[in-house]
């Protein structure tokens, strides 16, 4: 059983999608339980795999029984296994919270929603677990395609946003595929482990450099690194809340993981960091992303737009931290994959609750929310503190590593950008929290002068419990981040 985890992890959610679709024609009822079971089994498999990797080291799974480089291999080390747990956890939690949001929407097509949802998750898991650069592309496609459909079913702006995402995502995937083509041309192999053995032996490296640039360019589009971020804010803020809670926390983070994986296990750190200019260029791109993402977030009037621009800035954190090239920067970047996934999940769940009750996410309609939805607001405040980076929430610790790495590498621009972004986040979130303390206006447009108890109108329990779990984890992961770093991330980092 346990040696089959890598295959079960991906195929159980995939197969469940076919059941959901076929059974959906009889009744829409079984769709949700099947999806829930499939994702629970994915979480179980990824936890099992994680335990296995921590105990025995690298796990390799040969699909079809063919040895690499002839067949496709799943290669799991501590880094994948860690990201796998994050993905399957976030997907499951958001699915639980999505139930009430899906009920009644999508006019009779909710089974299709759940089928696309589980296929999206199995694609993300596959991207993370695979040890083959072309298999990664195929799974990238399945994730992208289901993602476009999930985003396109949002409000009236969503189809256009989804279409923009489709164009940009396809360009990104094409660049990645072009890079893989160049790699195959230069090496004749598609297996990551095999590639990393061949690449150092190749004398003339021009084709490899082009492959490297194309792969990274494709990933930068997919992860929405400024100035390639244009598709993201609209796609994430207009999509249905049930889907944005899945797509927003995971997609960009998985792409960051792919970047790390390619640099470590395909192009080798000696090659990637050995280039005289590229790492510095990437760090400066990241600095611009952080500054611009934060500034653009300040200009927004909708909560989801603000959160989307914060994601753009956070992508800069991770890209910059990783390309610092020292162990603190990389530790920060990898830790931030998990932390940012949790923080984004928390805030998107909060936004989902707001939208469920208020029917919109404009900041001016948040007046009085602190009395109306106290529990959701509590989660919002903790999530906000974590994004700002206040201890003991987890956001503080990854930011700490990133700043330490920046100072060590002498990249003071990056350190300044991090501090600037934290400052902007303080302004942003305290502005929102302040609004929620205002009293709501009465119908004739004047605010009440005497205190009237505002009726409580919380989101349903099935949305509050997942939010509570996520919020507690923000603090829990923060308290245990030392253990995570010494127990997991230190095993992954190569010596450069």
């Amino acid at each position, binding site marked *: 059983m346990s040696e089959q985890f890598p295959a079960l992890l991906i195929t159980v959610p995939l197969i469940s999608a076919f059941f959901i679709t076929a059974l959906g024609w009889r009744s829409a009822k079984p769709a949700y339980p099947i999806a829930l079971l499939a994702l629970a089994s994915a979480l179980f498999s990824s936890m099992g795999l994680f335990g296995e990797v921590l105990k025995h080291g690298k796990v390799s799974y040969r699909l079809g029984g063919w040895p690499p480089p002839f067949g496709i291999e799943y290669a799991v080390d501590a880094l994948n296994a860690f990201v796998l747990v994050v993905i399957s956890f976030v997907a499951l939690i958001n699915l639980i919270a999505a139930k009430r949001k899906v009920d009644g929407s999508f006019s009779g097509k909710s089974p299709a929603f759940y089928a696309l949802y589980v296929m999206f998750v199995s694609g993300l898991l596959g991207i993370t677990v695979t040890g083959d650069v072309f298999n990664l592309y195929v799974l990238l496609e*399945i994730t992208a395609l289901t993602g476009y459909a999930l985003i396109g079913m949002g409000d009236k702006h969503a189809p256009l946003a989804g279409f923009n995402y489709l164009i940009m995502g396809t360009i990104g995937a094409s660049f990645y595929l072009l890079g893989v083509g160049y790699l195959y041309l230069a090496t004749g192999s598609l297996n990551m482990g095999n590639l990393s053995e061949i690449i150092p032996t190749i004398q003339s490296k021009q084709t490899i450099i082009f492959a490297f640039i194309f792969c990274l360019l494709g990933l930068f589009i997919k992860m929405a690194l400024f100035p390639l971020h244009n598709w993201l804010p609209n796609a994430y803020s207009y999509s249905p809340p049930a889907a944005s809670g899945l797509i927003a926390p995971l997609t960009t983070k998985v792409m960051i993981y792919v970047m790390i994986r390619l640099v470590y296990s395909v192009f080798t750190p000696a090659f990637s960091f050995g280039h005289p200019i590229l790492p510095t260029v990437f760090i400066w791109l990241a600095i611009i992303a952080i500054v611009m993402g934060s500034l653009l977030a300040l200009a927004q009037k909708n909560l989801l737009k603000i959160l989307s621009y914060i994601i753009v800035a956070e992508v800069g954190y991770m890209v910059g931290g990783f390309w610092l090239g020292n162990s603190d920067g990389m530790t920060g970047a990898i830790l931030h994959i998990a932390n940012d996934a949790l923080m984004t999940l928390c805030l998107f769940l909060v936004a989902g609750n707001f939208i469920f009750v208020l029917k919109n996410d404009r900041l001016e309609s948040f007046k009085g929310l602190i009395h109306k939805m106290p529990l959701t607001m509590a989660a919002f405040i903790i999530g906000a503190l974590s994004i700002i980076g206040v201890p003991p929430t987890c956001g503080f610790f990854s930011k700490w590593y990133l700043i330490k790495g920046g100072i060590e590498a002498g990249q003071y621009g990056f350190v300044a950008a991090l501090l600037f972004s934290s400052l902007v986040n303080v302004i942003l979130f305290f502005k929102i929290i302040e609004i929620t303390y205002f009293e709501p206006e009465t119908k004739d447009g004047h605010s009440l002068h005497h205190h009237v108890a505002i009726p409580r109108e919380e989101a349903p329990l099935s949305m509050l419990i997942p939010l509570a779990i996520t919020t507690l984890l923000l603090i829990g992961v923060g308290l245990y981040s030392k253990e995570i770093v010494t127990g997991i991330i230190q095993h992954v980092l190569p010596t450069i």
Partner: protein
Amino acid sequence: MKKTGLIMVIVTGILLIAGTTEFPDWADPNSPASSHVSPYYILKAIDDTAVPNVVSAVLADYRGYDTMFETAVIFAAGLACFFLLRQFNRKRAKTKMYRHVPTGIIIDIDEGGKLPEENSNFERIDSQWTPYDLIIKTTCRIIIPFIQVFALYVIIHGHHSPGGGFQGGVILGATIILFAISHDLRTTIKRLSEKMASVFSSMGVFLFAATGMLCLLLGSVYLDYSALSDLLGTDPVMARSHGILIIEIGVGLSVMAVMIWLYYNLSSAGKHNEGL
């Protein structure tokens, strides 16, 4: 904006061309692509899988896992299109239009009126200008069965000649689309409902994924068809050949059904009326 776009395209193009300077020569037998893994496939495919067509062996066995997800991508495309376009609860038109085929006279029938019988000379239309072409209809009726037989041949013969599930499935799907174009969408949906198309498309990929799962349950790894040898009563190498056939059929079924499903939703914008 247009100018910056043009400049970027030109720069990217120059980069792409610059990147090709160190490419190996055309058909260079010593190039990495033809000297690293390819010789293994060419030499061993027949011994490993008993499939003479190396492309099929690589596609469906050595890299069969990729192919499973490619099929799943196609399935996802059909599902995404259904999810985005299909309209279940739309307002139905109050009057229905029927045309008397022999005379070409169009009658409007109000709600509650008596509708013509199923096999009468009347046909339902949605707009006044709906051409009726006997020659096209009859020709398509005649050639569709032949195309379908050819499609089955392409699927089954993928082991020995160019072909396989994707190509055969597309040809099969095209016959139904041809029928829908030459007749109308309603007639087609009456013969092959959307539900059938959707269930077939999930069944096809399921057949693929379940074959892989069966190998896993029989004690081997996912998609290792040689584990099916006891079940199929053959030696492990032959079992791989049969396994490839099974999944090719699954791919063919799925691709056919998705083509039809996509056409239903795209041609009528999810309304499932008379279509194009």
